[in-house]
């Protein structure tokens, strides 16, 4: 197969890569798996011991569930159906215990809440990991905490406190969107811009303005300005060129059929290249499951 993968750009949480020579069905399958079937850990059950804040119990629990947790889901198992307690192999326990109090040293006329109160903003950094069972032995150097420390969970005033215990389990995005490991995963096809006739001078300038910057380049050949397609990849396909009568028939906009530009943005739980590898392995796992069933169940 004339297939290749090019990594274009890799940043903190984003990966942009190209797949050439693959078909739409498989590219879409990867995208769907990245969004909905790569497992992660997220807060599922919240045991509320004391919540005297303004935020209702269920709203607080909903917000806690959406916080991304930095825990490699491959180290854990899925929880069995109907298992309420949770064992150490499938559950991570976190505690959030915070109380707001008045600051006795604040100035008399100040109205800034940062000065007046202690702990009036509950951030995700206040969540602490409580090891279950032998988890301290299983994960000696692991540091399980939320990915971002500055997610605001609730606001408190003096006398209010929050005391909850949270269980994190492994799940997939199909079940609830909080388990999705990507901020977004998308792909687009490489644009293919062909100039049917040579375009010169003012028409060339107009053409350059019609496309996104960097797509069309003007070269000076024998004293005349000639337009050339420099980098079709940057084009966003706004079809501005078809609004101009003079240029309408001279340009053909199309897409290269099997060149996919993928863009994967991770929420921080797993790096995006690991996510792509996991997605491919999950697709293989699905095929294997059906192959095994074919072999084990006798066909009539």
């Amino acid at each position, binding site marked *: *197969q004339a*297939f*290749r*993968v*090019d*990594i274009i750009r*890799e940043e903190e949480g984003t990966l942009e*890569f190209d*797949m050439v020579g*693959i*078909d739409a*069905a*498989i590219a*879409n*399958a990867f995208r*769907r*798996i990245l969004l*909905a*079937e790569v497992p992660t850990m997220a807060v599922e059950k919240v045991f509320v011991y004391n919540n005297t804040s303004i935020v209702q119990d269920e709203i607080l629990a909903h917000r806690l569930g959406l916080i991304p947790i930095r825990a490699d889901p491959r180290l854990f198992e899925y929880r069995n159906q109907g298992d309420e307690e949770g064992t150490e192999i499938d559950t991570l326990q976190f505690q959030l215990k915070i109380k707001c109090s008045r600051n006795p040293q604040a100035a008399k006329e100040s109205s800034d809440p940062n000065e007046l109160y202690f702990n009036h903003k509950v951030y995700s950094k206040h969540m602490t990991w409580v090891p279950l069972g032998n988890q301290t032995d299983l994960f000696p150097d692991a540091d399980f905490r939320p990915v971002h420390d500055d997610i605001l969970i609730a606001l408190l005033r003096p006398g209010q406190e929050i005391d909850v215990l949270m269980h994190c389990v492994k799940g997939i995005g199909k079940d609830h969107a909080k388990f999705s490991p990507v901020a977004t995963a998308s792909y687009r096809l490489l644009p293919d811009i062909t100039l049917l006739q040579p375009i010169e001078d003012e028409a060339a300038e107009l053409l350059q303005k019609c496309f996104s910057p960097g797509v069309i380049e003007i070269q000076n050949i024998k004293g005349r300005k000639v337009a050339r397609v420099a980098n079709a990849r940057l084009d966003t396909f706004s079809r501005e060129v078809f609004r101009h009568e003079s240029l309408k028939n001279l340009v053909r906009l199309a897409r290269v059929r099997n060149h996919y530009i993928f863009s994967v943005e991770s929420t921080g739980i797993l790096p995006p*290249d690991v996510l*792509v*590898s996991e997605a*491919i*392995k999950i*697709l*293989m796992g*699905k*095929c*294997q499951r*059906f*192959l095994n069933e*074919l072999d084990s*169940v006798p*066909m*009539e």
Partner: protein
Amino acid sequence: VQADGTDGNCVTFVLHDEDHTLGNSLRYMVMKNPDVEFCGYCITHPSESKINFRIQTRGTLPAVEPFRKGLTNLMGVCQHVLNTFEVRLSLKRSGA
């Protein structure tokens, strides 16, 4: 598995817990097989997570064959993609 007709040429497989993710890519793989006369899948109802996958072969080949081959080919494609991706990733990392 529901078989249609007296020969094993035309079989409808009911796959549980699946959707377009596997259905479309598997259909693509099976269609590449020249022995297959008809291949399609449909989702019976969007609330239920199962698909009807139908294969009809020309000649006397049992329909299970292209199904098995399609699954194996899809696994091969995935493996190839994974290998290429990892190679390129390590190249990029070591080159940077």
